[in-house]
């Protein structure tokens, strides 16, 4: 029966409740367990910065990464429990608090386990070694005469006798042990000790399912305290005022227009304009009512129908060229019997987080305490310190779970907005957007065009490939809020911009000679644009691999081959070959050349495959679609996925996180396109920026996690975003013969291409 489990899970997640009266978001279990933070100055080369032992022998892992509610926390504590030979239930995690965790870059690039987990694992192994040395000295034996059982160290030869627990050895005190640190902060931080980590064959906890997430019970029982629940005494509610035309700035404000609403204060600094009120509803009404005169700017955007022509014609700010691989692609084209070319287009997409972002800041008395739902609290600290010219040690940033975050969404902007408003009014301020702030004004994933060409010899063999990406930067202003110009507030306050020009090219192991280039064009509006771009889940990945993997399907047809056989013929990496083979086997792939157009009742059915690599992770996706012949609606009935991310820490959580990633990416492939006219973004809510509905959820998702325990873990969080849209497009082609080269795959596009 689930009852005792309920209570235990509930209590495990409920530490925040007891402490919330002091400071929202303060390290939950750590404080509940009575640990005060007296560690040795939070140095990156100190063991105590990562692992500490409570008096009751329970363990705390401290990490500067954050779990964006996908279960990464459970992965961390399992890795710690494994090395320390203690039950996972006795390990808790403190994350993303700038005063209590080392700067490890926050949530970034699916490196939570890949980098963050490895640091904790190495630290835990070192802690175990140090504890064994302490016990050995205590008992006058050598380490190899000791065993550890559930955090209790005993002497092998003395079954009924000498025992000492971790808590008795060091509980409540802190390790004073130096680690080897690579002198890097952020994602790149690496630490290791003298201890040898366990080999996968020794694992009892890692690689097994069954440890449940601790954030779920409070969410299900309605007691979870999240970012949007932060309340401080005397806190005011803020709202930002955005212009009707992108790029317009305030030139006059009529404060009398809100004089009927009590306690409204307008904050206008340079081009930044917002307001505060004691009550949230008053702030909302005032933001709607406030009369602002905006500067006259000429329409800054092309019409939406012209966006891809704009990209094609745009001046390249920077070209990145991939090194020539597998020989000389240009020579291959010179000697080709045929050249096959196709071009693919992907629209701007919105993070459109479940709720618009919320940030809370208290900027009084020369100090800053800031609550953020953003993924990178340490960068947030840097940005706030720089914006207000404060030393970093006067800025404290606490991460709290916000309304979902899959990249650099609007959280970083809301946090800085709150800080500016709080500084201006001298009170704590909570800023929360309205829906349009989250959809119209959040930073976007970039629109892009990809042109792919292949050289084919007289025998029908592909001998060269040229791939060109061109579009807006995948992050115009960096992936975090570590400097003011990376936020809306900083841009509106005139901070010098430091744009970053980067888009990207496919990651794969095809063996033909290839040349890949990526050109980035300038933003449509330089500052504070509603079409400014930022990292969104697998930045650039879905768009680039939609193009490259759709193209591989087209090439298979052009060379008279089955799409799976084509990939197996040309892929060179054995792990890549294995995921493609596995997915094909699991899906019952029926080899075929070209579109089968199989009609079953009112729907055409089809299968499509795509594969891609991200970091160390490789994924093959097979989509099975139904396309209604009358409505042209696409439904992905089933996905079959083969996923290789090396060692899997928590298979159950990996599968569930992959399912959600698959649904989110299906939404991007089938439905999502930011709409705009020449003046403004016109996607402002869920009607104008539709996402996947429950009726669109697949019937089944069949995931195979490849068994690779001896390969270091790479990420789970983004690899599947890459091949999925192309797998769907390829399945649509098999079902209908319509080759979609522009996303999203709406009924309108299918109807337009219907043959």
């Amino acid at each position, binding site marked *: 029966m689930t009852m005792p489990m309920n209570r235990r899970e509930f209590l495990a997640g409920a530490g925040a409740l007891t402490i919330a009266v002091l400071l929202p978001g303060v390290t939950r279990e750590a404080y509940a367990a009575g640990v005060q933070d007296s560690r040795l100055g939070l140095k990156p080369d100190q063991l105590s910065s990562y692992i500490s032992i409570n008096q009751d022998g329970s363990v705390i892992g401290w990490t500067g990464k954050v779990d964006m509610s996908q279960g990464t926390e459970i992965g961390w504590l399992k890795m710690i429990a494994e090395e320390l030979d203690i039950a996972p239930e006795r390990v808790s995690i403190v994350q993303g608090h700038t005063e209590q965790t080392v700067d490890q870059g926050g949530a970034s690039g699916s490196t939570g386990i890949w980098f963050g987990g490895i640091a904790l694992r190495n630290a835990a192994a070192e802690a175990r070694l140090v504890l064994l040395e302490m016990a050995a000295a205590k008992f006058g034996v050598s380490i190899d005469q000791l065993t550890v059982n559930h955090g209790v160290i005993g002497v092998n030869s003395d079954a009924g006798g000498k025992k000492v627990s971790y808590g008795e050895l060091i509980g409540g005190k802190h390790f004073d042990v130096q680690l080897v640190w690579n002198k890097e902060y952020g994602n790149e931080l690496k630490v290791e000790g003298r201890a040898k980590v366990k080999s996968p064959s020794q694992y009892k906890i890692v690689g097994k399912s069954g440890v449940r*997430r601790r954030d779920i019970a409070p969410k299900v029982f*309605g007691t979870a305290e999240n970012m949007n629940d932060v309340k401080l005494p005397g806190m005011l509610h803020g709202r930002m005022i955005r212009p009707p035309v992108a790029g317009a700035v305030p030139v006059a404000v009529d404060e009398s227009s809100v004089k009927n609403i009590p306690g409204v204060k307008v904050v206008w600094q340079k081009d930044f304009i917002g307001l505060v009120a004691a009550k949230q509803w008053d702030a909302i009404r005032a933001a709607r009512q406030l009369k602002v005169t905006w500067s006259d700017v000429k329409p800054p955007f092309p019409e939406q129908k012209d966006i891809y022509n704009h990209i094609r014609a745009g001046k390249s700010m920077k070209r990145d060229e991939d090194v020539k691989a597998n020989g000389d692609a240009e020579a291959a084209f010179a000697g080709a019997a045929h050249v096959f070319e196709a071009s693919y287009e992907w629209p701007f997409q919105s993070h459109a987080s*479940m709720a618009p972002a919320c940030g809370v800041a208290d900027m009084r008395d020369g100090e800053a305490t800031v609550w953020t739902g953003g993924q990178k609290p340490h960068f947030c600290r840097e940005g706030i310190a720089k914006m207000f010219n404060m030393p970093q040690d006067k800025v404290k940033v606490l991460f709290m779970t916000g309304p979902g975050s899959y990249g650099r969404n609007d959280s970083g902007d809301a946090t800085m907005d709150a800080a500016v408003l709080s500084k201006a009014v001298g009170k704590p301020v909570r800023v929360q957007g309205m829906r349009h702030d989250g959809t119209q004004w959040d930073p976007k994933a970039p629109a892009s065009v990809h042109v792919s060409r292949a050289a084919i010899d007289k025998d029908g063999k592909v001998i060269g490939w040229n791939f060109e990406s061109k579009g807006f930067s995948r992050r115009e202003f960096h992936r975090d809020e570590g400097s003011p110009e990376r936020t809306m507030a900083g841009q509106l306050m005139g901070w010098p911009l430091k744009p970053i020009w980067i888009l990207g090219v496919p990651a794969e192991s095809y063996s033909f000679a290839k040349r890949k280039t990526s050109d980035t064009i300038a933003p449509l509006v330089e500052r504070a644009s509603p079409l400014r771009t930022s990292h969104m889940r697998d930045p650039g990945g879905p768009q680039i691999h939609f193009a490259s993997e759709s193209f591989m399907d087209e090439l298979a047809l052009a060379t008279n081959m089955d799409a799976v056989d084509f990939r197996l013929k040309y892929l060179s990496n054995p792990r890549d070959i294995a995921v493609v083979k596995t997915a094909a086997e699991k899906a019952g792939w029926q080899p075929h050349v070209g579109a089968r157009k199989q009609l079953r009742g009112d729907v055409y059915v089809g299968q499509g495959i795509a594969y891609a690599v991200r970091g160390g992770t490789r994924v093959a996706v097979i989509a099975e679609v139904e396309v209604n012949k009358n409505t042209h609606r696409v439904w992905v009935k089933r996905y079959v996925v083969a996923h290789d991310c090396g060692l899997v820490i928590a298979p159950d959580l990996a599968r569930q996180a992959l399912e959600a990633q698959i649904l989110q990416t299906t939404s991007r492939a089938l439905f999502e396109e930011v709409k705009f006219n020449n003046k403004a973004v016109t996607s402002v809510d869920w009607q104008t920026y539709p996402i996947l509905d429950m009726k669109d959820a697949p019937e089944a998702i069949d995931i195979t996690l490849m068994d690779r325990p001896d390969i270091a873990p790479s990420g789970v969080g983004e690899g599947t975003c890459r091949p999925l849209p192309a797998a769907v497009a390829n399945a649509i082609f098999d079902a209908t013969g319509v080759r979609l080269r522009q996303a999203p795959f709406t009924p309108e596009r299918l109807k337009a291409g219907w043959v």
Partner: protein
Amino acid sequence: MAKHIDLNVNGKTRAVEAEPDMPLLYALRDNLEMKEPRFGCGLAQCGACTVLLNGVPTRSCVTPVGSVGAKKITTIAGIGTVDKPHKIQAAFLEEQVPQCGFCLNGWMLTSVALLDNNPRPSDAQIRDALSGLKCRCGTHMSILRAVKRAAQA
């Protein structure tokens, strides 16, 4: 003008001082400091603010607080407790449904109403009843499993 309004929330009478046209959501979150109903869109498009009004799933973000009267307001904290969970809570916990969890009110309370009216819904009926709600994290498969589990409980 702010008025004294009595609300029946999770079985208790709670008094708020509010303008009658203010949405119920703000009375619950700001006046009564409740955390479960959430702001998602303010436009009745997503379900994050859902409460039950006399058992009917209702978007509190567009429901004027002055229109509620004596109707019984139930939030996800009001359908069950840790010791006596509602079968929907037990199933959502068992299936480990949420990621960020901001959307849960809509899914859980709509499912409560669905199972009250149709204790053994088909897959298509579940999808139909839950259509229109939003989950940006993409936990739809877990939600479907949880509702089916609750229907079999």
